[in-house]
């Protein structure tokens, strides 16, 4: 800033950036008088404590009111899709863990299932159950991380530490199972590499008994807290129609009242065997997304409990050729990752390397909704909304 004033006196571009489809948001004409028209442009990020990574948001402000935003992404772009074209199917498997690194297991599940579909093989039931258990544990871990950082953004410090304490238990199970905590690479094409370790079920059940009171604890801190309610109710509202048009998925979509979950709609792995609810919200505001995710955590626990009880015996690896050469063709397979629909579109040309792998990242698409959600809100709401979208920049940028 060269001049020392709140009001930048330079005339600004009268054309709004892109508000073509903002059906529900009447922004109103910019004011004609002098002090009103000038916008303050603030650069948030890429090094900002609340952008969850290297996201850069350019905010156009009128005082503290947000007139528009523009996201600048790509700081973490590694060309995952290009790498895929130069690796064999098996070799690419660990790379997907690096996208949404807080939900690495889900990424791996999606990729493995997509390649399995392309190869026309199916993982054995026991492998599927292990997959479900680990994926749901990972969903829980992802949601806990989200809750901690989201609450921290809104100013509540303590939930962060509580959620990390409990997430630690999940990571311990991962570590015991496959040796890694974050980028697990838990699954292989055709099933699982490892049989469950001695006492796996016991650990999981112990965790299942351990965590529900902890979730109640988070809720005790936040759900009825007046300040939390004021900060999240009617903030970052996205209507059902806008949510569908913008293609947002996962808890963000469900909070807007669309009862759609790929685990129910197009069950994959072993999800059709389990009984669980799909929580939805009514208003599509930040509070609804919060409650939806909290409920999802409980539903995940329910799924895990059923899976642990019903886990069948048997092999964990299907018959997979040593050298994978899927037939020529295309496949799109998607799963319900913690953040939303995670899709893999794989084109095979019959060789050992995929001809093209397209990853449909939920965070990328959900982040697009940021603009519509924060228009007319205050700067503080931008923080809350970025938190509630639950983005992971590794996945946005790939």
């Amino acid at each position: 800033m060269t001049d020392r004033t709140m009001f930048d006196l330079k005339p600004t571009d009268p054309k709004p950036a892109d508000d073509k489809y903002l059906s529900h948001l009447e922004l109103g004409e910019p004011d004609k008088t002098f002090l009103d028209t000038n916008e303050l442009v603030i650069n948030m990020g890429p090094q900002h404590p609340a952008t969850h990574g290297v996201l850069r948001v350019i905010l156009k402000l009128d005082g503290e009111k947000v007139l528009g935003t523009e996201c600048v992404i790509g700081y973490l772009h590694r060309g995952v899709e290009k790498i895929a074209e130069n690796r064999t199917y098996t070799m690419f498997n660990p790379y997907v863990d690096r996208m949404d690194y807080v939900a690495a297991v889900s990424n791996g599940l999606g990729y493995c299932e997509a390649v399995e579909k392309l190869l026309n093989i199916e993982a054995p039931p026991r492998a599927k159950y292990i997959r479900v258990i680990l994926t749901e544990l990972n969903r829980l871990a992802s949601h806990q991380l989200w809750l901690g950082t989201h609450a921290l953004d809104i100013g509540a410090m303590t939930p962060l530490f509580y959620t990390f304490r409990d997430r630690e238990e999940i990571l311990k199970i991962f570590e015991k199972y496959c040796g890694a905590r974050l980028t697990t690479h838990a699954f292989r094409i055709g099933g699982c590499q490892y049989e469950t370790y001695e006492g796996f079920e016991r650990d999981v059940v112990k965790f299942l008994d351990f965590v529900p009171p902890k979730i109640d604890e988070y809720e005790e801190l936040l759900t009825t807290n007046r300040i939390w309610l004021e900060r999240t109710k009617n903030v970052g509202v996205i209507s059902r129609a806008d949510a569908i048009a913008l293609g947002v998925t996962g808890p963000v979509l469900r909070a807007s009242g669309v009862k759609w979950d790929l685990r129910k709609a197009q069950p994959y792995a072993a999800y059709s065997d389990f009984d669980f609810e799909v929580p939805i919200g009514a208003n599509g505001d930040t509070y609804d997304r919060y409650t939806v995710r909290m409920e999802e955590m409980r539903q995940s626990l329910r799924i895990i409990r059923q899976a642990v009880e019903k886990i069948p015996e048997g092999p964990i690896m299907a018959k997979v050729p040593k050298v994978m050469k899927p037939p020529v063709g295309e496949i799109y397979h998607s799963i319900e990752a913690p953040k939303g629909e995670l899709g893999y579109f794989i084109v095979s040309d019959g060789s050992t390397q995929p001809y093209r792998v397209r990853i449909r990242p939920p965070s990328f698409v959900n982040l697009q909704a940021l603009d519509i959600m924060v228009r007319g809100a205050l700067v503080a709401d931008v923080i809350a909304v970025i938190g509630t979208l639950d983005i992971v920049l590794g996945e946005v940028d790939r």
Partner: protein
Amino acid sequence: MIAKLKGQYGSGICEANTYLGQNYMVVDPSIVSDLLQILRNREQFDYCVDITAVHYPEREKQFDVLWILYSFSKNERIRVKIMIADGESVPSAVSVWATANWLEREVYDMFGIRFDGHPDLKRILLPDGWKGYPLRKDYGIIQQDQEWVKANLGIESGQ
């Protein structure tokens, strides 16, 4: 549905098939704008899952552009595919699905396929001013825009 569409467009729909239980249709680029509109409004494919492209350098029409659509009411997916040559542009779907905005920008970023009618078609993941389209097959895996790297980062090479 396919029959109805075929009746409407005739030879515009080149192929409509199912592979591994997934529906797809290959259509002519000229009708795709209309078709997407109809799929969205009449056939209730209200959720555009993804827009992407595939590069086949040896083909005359080098690019496949794909729309992956989903219908909440039918719980059904469909892939719409067109083939275009290098330099041809594709009608933008932003007015049909708002989500197409960034997805089309990414396709442009990675393949250099232009979308007509896109409100703000510029690079999204790579920096503005980058030369080359990385997901084309003729772009090497360790290739990078040396000039850009030198000018903007002040280093010899980013590798």
